[in-house]
């Protein structure tokens, strides 16, 4: 009887112990001891072949189904170091994740076009993480670049944001979204308004020429904007931001004077509210994921008036002209735009793929009572398919179709007429082979096709196109445990300027906490279709002519850098020196008594840069980061335009974090200092160059973000705390009216 009892009891016990049970894992932050949500946990049984995965909930708890015995778990989450451990299953296991303070575990793709963590990438990459972006409460790409990259100055040029960096104009910086080129330009700049900060996961910046991997325009640097991807089963986030108006431009009484609807609308559009709102929904189920984003933003228009006399110095004439205080205002357009995007993809053991779509509509509200205003639209369709061939070999094919249109909108009839259409088609096939221990190889073949229809060609709506077929080879060679050499070569045939060859070479030597890098790269910029074929008469005053025989600009880039990363001190410092020399720079000359402007090759331009970037987490709750960029352009009388970047630029940020129960506080103070600069421009009235001096200035922003119960956030902040307003406004100053407050609310699930 007793035996029987024992047998029954034992079998029950065995049955229970054999019965697969679920394992609860609690993931906490090693510092705050708070649960960490959205941690991806992968587990593998040590006994049999079973495995699985789960994501922690808002309290940091995940349940692993059907585990048994001893399992190996890997917990990973953006912003934390990956945690791996072997545990024996019990009721509750608590693991602690350590914050990835220096972003070393973050995966970057820009340096070698293959995924590499920041720690191991052989090509020096600056990473602006999601956390950095939310720290400065950025709403636009402008905000991010201005406050995070010391060498970048963001101005307004004609119709949109213009970037100048390291002494080079916007057209020498290649800006990518998820690795893809953006169609459409204004004065050599892409439309930075196309993407909102709320939809950005991270921004990767690779300084120097990267034409071997990226082709045209990658002369000064490559800025790759990586959009968000869902990180948990189901997520929703919504935010709404309201900022003080810049200026009151009209009144109800003035609007009331007008009978016509279109006139009233025109006046009202000047005083649009300053609003940014975003909604995004994402899900990740088994191997499928999808992310949908909708963003709407608008801003009021405003006018800036000079408060100081315009003094022009003409060096050739050695004379100074004081033009007095200009009464002409610098007008900044208001706008309203919306963007809709979706990416849907899948990941399986051997296959992965993604389809992307995007639509953007931007309406600009100018002060001109001329019955029209600009509308810009963009749509994108693209995707990729990747096959894992085992042994770390992958084949990837991708396609991106990007269209950018400009319209004139007739305010009376409410119809739009197209004046510009730019299409980029980009096909790519890449084979990457990482099966050899010492060599990581990348082979690429690409076809790039650009089509431009513009009213600035000789006959209205004339169309021109260029094609570029290239092959790319890259080898990441690990000489020994300390030394890596990356060599890249691009060769191809471009329909406008024939054969081109762009090599690049980086040697990285690691020694303890130090990484040293030496690089050389060739960069190039193909002449744009406008520079090739433009034929546009500006009123009856002058005509701009393209030249179809223009050659590509080429550059030689040399750089030296030292990186110091000390994890225990939570400190990273990067110092770099570079020299960039551009040949065959395309400029323009005025002829025929200033009635003709012709594009031509032949200018030489070189620029020397020194940069220092540092990030230091002094205390667990306090981080300091910043950078300084020095730019020097050797004097050369033949160049048409001196640098529009200041020789001295600096960024600095102090970031404080506090977590108490369900309350989180993040306070951030960010500074951008732009040094004094001299800009040389051509006076088209007398064909003489003049130099104007702009004083140094600082922009300081404060942001206080509070988060309640993880899901709700409330932010208040002030932009331009000390109310800096430029005494003389131009393309080379920051167009701000002074201190402005904002408030933002958000919900994340």
């Amino acid at each position, binding site marked *: 009887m007793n035996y029987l009892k024992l047998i029954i009891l034992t079998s029950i016990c065995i049955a229970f112990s054999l019965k697969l049970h679920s394992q609860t894992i609690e993931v906490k932050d090693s510092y705050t001891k708070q649960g960490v949500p959205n941690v991806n946990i992968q587990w593998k049984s040590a006994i049999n072949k079973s495995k699985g995965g789960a994501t922690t909930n808002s309290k940091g708890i995940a349940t692993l189904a059907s585990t048994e015995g001893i399992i190996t778990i890997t917990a990973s989450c953006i912003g934390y170091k990956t945690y791996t451990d072997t545990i024996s299953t019990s009721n509750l296991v608590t693991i602690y994740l350590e914050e990835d303070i220096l972003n070393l575990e973050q995966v970057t793709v820009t340096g070698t076009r293959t995924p590499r963590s920041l720690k191991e990438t052989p090509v020096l990459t600056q990473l602006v993480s999601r956390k950095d972006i939310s720290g400065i409460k950025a709403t636009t790409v402008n905000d991010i670049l201005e406050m995070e990259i010391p060498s970048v100055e963001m101005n307004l040029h004609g119709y949109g944001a213009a970037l100048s960096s390291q002494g080079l104009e916007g057209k020498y910086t290649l800006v990518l979204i998820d690795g893809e080129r953006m169609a459409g330009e204004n004065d050599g700049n892409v439309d930075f308004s196309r993407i909102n900060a709320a939809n950005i996961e991270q921004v990767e910046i690779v300084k120097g020429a990267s034409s071997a991997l990226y082709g045209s325009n990658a002369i000064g640097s490559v800025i790759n904007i990586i959009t968000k991807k869902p990180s948990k089963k189901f997520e929703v986030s919504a935010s709404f931001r309201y900022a003080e108006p810049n200026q009151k431009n009209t009144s109800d009484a003035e609007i009331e004077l007008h009978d016509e609807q279109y006139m009233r609308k025109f006046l009202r559009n000047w005083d649009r509210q300053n609003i940014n709102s975003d909604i995004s929904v994402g899900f990740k189920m088994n191997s499928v994921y999808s992310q949908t984003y909708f963003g709407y933003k608008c801003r009021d228009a405003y006018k800036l008036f000079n408060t100081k006399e315009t003094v022009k110095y003409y060096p050739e004439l050695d004379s100074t002209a004081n033009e007095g205080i200009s009464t*002409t*205002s610098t007008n900044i357009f208001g706008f309203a735009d919306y963007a809709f995007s979706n990416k849907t993809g899948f990941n399986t053991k051997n296959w992965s793929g993604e389809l992307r779509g995007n639509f953007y509509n931007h309406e600009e509200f100018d002060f001109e009572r*001329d*019955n029209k205003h600009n509308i810009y639209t963009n749509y994108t369709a693209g995707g990729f398919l990747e096959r894992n061939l085992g042994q770390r070999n992958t084949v990837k094919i991708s396609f991106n179709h990007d269209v950018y249109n400009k319209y004139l909108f*007739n305010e009376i*009839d409410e119809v739009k007429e197209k004046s510009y259409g730019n299409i980029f088609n980009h096909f790519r096939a890449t084979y990457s082979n990482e099966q050899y221990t010492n060599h990581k190889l990348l082979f690429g073949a690409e076809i790039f096709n650009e089509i431009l229809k513009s009213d600035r060609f000789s006959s209205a709506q004339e169309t021109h196109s260029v094609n570029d077929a290239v092959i790319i080879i890259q080898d990441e060679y690990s000489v020994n445990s300390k030394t890596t050499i990356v060599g890249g070569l691009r060769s191809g045939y471009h329909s406008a300027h024939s054969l081109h060859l762009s090599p690049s070479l980086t040697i990285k030597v690691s020694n303890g906490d130090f990484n040293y890098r030496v690089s050389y790269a060739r960069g190039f910029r193909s002449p744009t279709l406008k520079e090739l074929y433009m034929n546009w008469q500006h009123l*009856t005053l002058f005509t701009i002519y393209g030249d179809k025989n223009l050659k590509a600009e080429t550059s030689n880039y040399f750089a030296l850098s030292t990186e110091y990363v000390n994890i225990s001190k939570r400190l990273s410092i990067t110092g770099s020196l570079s020299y960039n020399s551009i040949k065959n720079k395309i400029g323009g000359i005025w002829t025929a008594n200033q009635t003709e402007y012709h594009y031509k090759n032949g200018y030489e331009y070189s620029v020397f840069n020194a940069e220092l970037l540092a990030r230091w987490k002094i205390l667990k709750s306090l981080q300091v980061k910043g950078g300084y960029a020095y730019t020097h352009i050797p004097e050369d009388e033949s160049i048409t335009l001196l640098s529009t970047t200041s020789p001295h630029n600096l960024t600095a940020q102090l970031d404080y974090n506090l977590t108490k129960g369900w309350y989180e506080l993040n306070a951030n103070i960010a500074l951008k200092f732009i040094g004094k600069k001299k800009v040389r421009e051509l006076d088209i009235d007398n064909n003489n160059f003049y130099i104007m001096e702009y004083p140094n200035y600082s922009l300081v922003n404060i942001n206080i973000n509070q988060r309640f119960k993880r899901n709700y956030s409330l932010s208040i902040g002030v932009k331009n705390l000390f109310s800096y307003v430029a005494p003389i406004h131009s393309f080379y100053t920051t167009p701000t009216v002074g201190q402005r407050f904002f408030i933002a609310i958000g919900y994340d699930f």
Partner: protein
Amino acid sequence: MIKKTTLFTAFALAAVTFLISCEKDETSPKSGKVIEINASAYNAWTYFSFDEDTVVNITNYTTSTDWDIAFHRSDVRVNCGQAGPGQGGSYNMGKINFNSVTEAPADRYSLNTTINILESYTMPPVYVTAPGDTLVSKWMTITTSNTAPPTYNYSDNIYVIRTAKGKYAKIWLTNYFNKQSQSGHITMKYVYQASGSRQF
């Protein structure tokens, strides 16, 4: 269920409309005629007669009383002083509601003298002096700049014009551009009192 969905959709649409659209207002019908006058030529003036209620051809403006107001781009002349033999004149009522002007002033009308006009828009531009109205010509000023497109600053002043035959009209020059955004096409809103009374 359908009701709920409909309600939700309606709510969502309302929210989106609130965010994106502009408020619409009802136009209160205001009196006055509207005419678009093509004054885009640099080398010629376009003459208008309130009696004829249309643009008229004038061979010699200095001797004719068949026109009341004339336009050259944004420049204006009325039939008086150095511009013509008529009893014309102009009076600036200021930036007020068009309908609130119910009576023409009895006196202190401005008479034409000379103005500077751009006769040829070439490089370099050619300016000449011509008889014109210094007051009404300021209905809109153009600011040009080397670095930006020109800006057009409308005064939105309401002017009372005394015609060649001494009658009164109130005018509001509302637009310098036509629908196709071509400059020099002026939209004039006006009320003409053909009886000779000063009441509109």
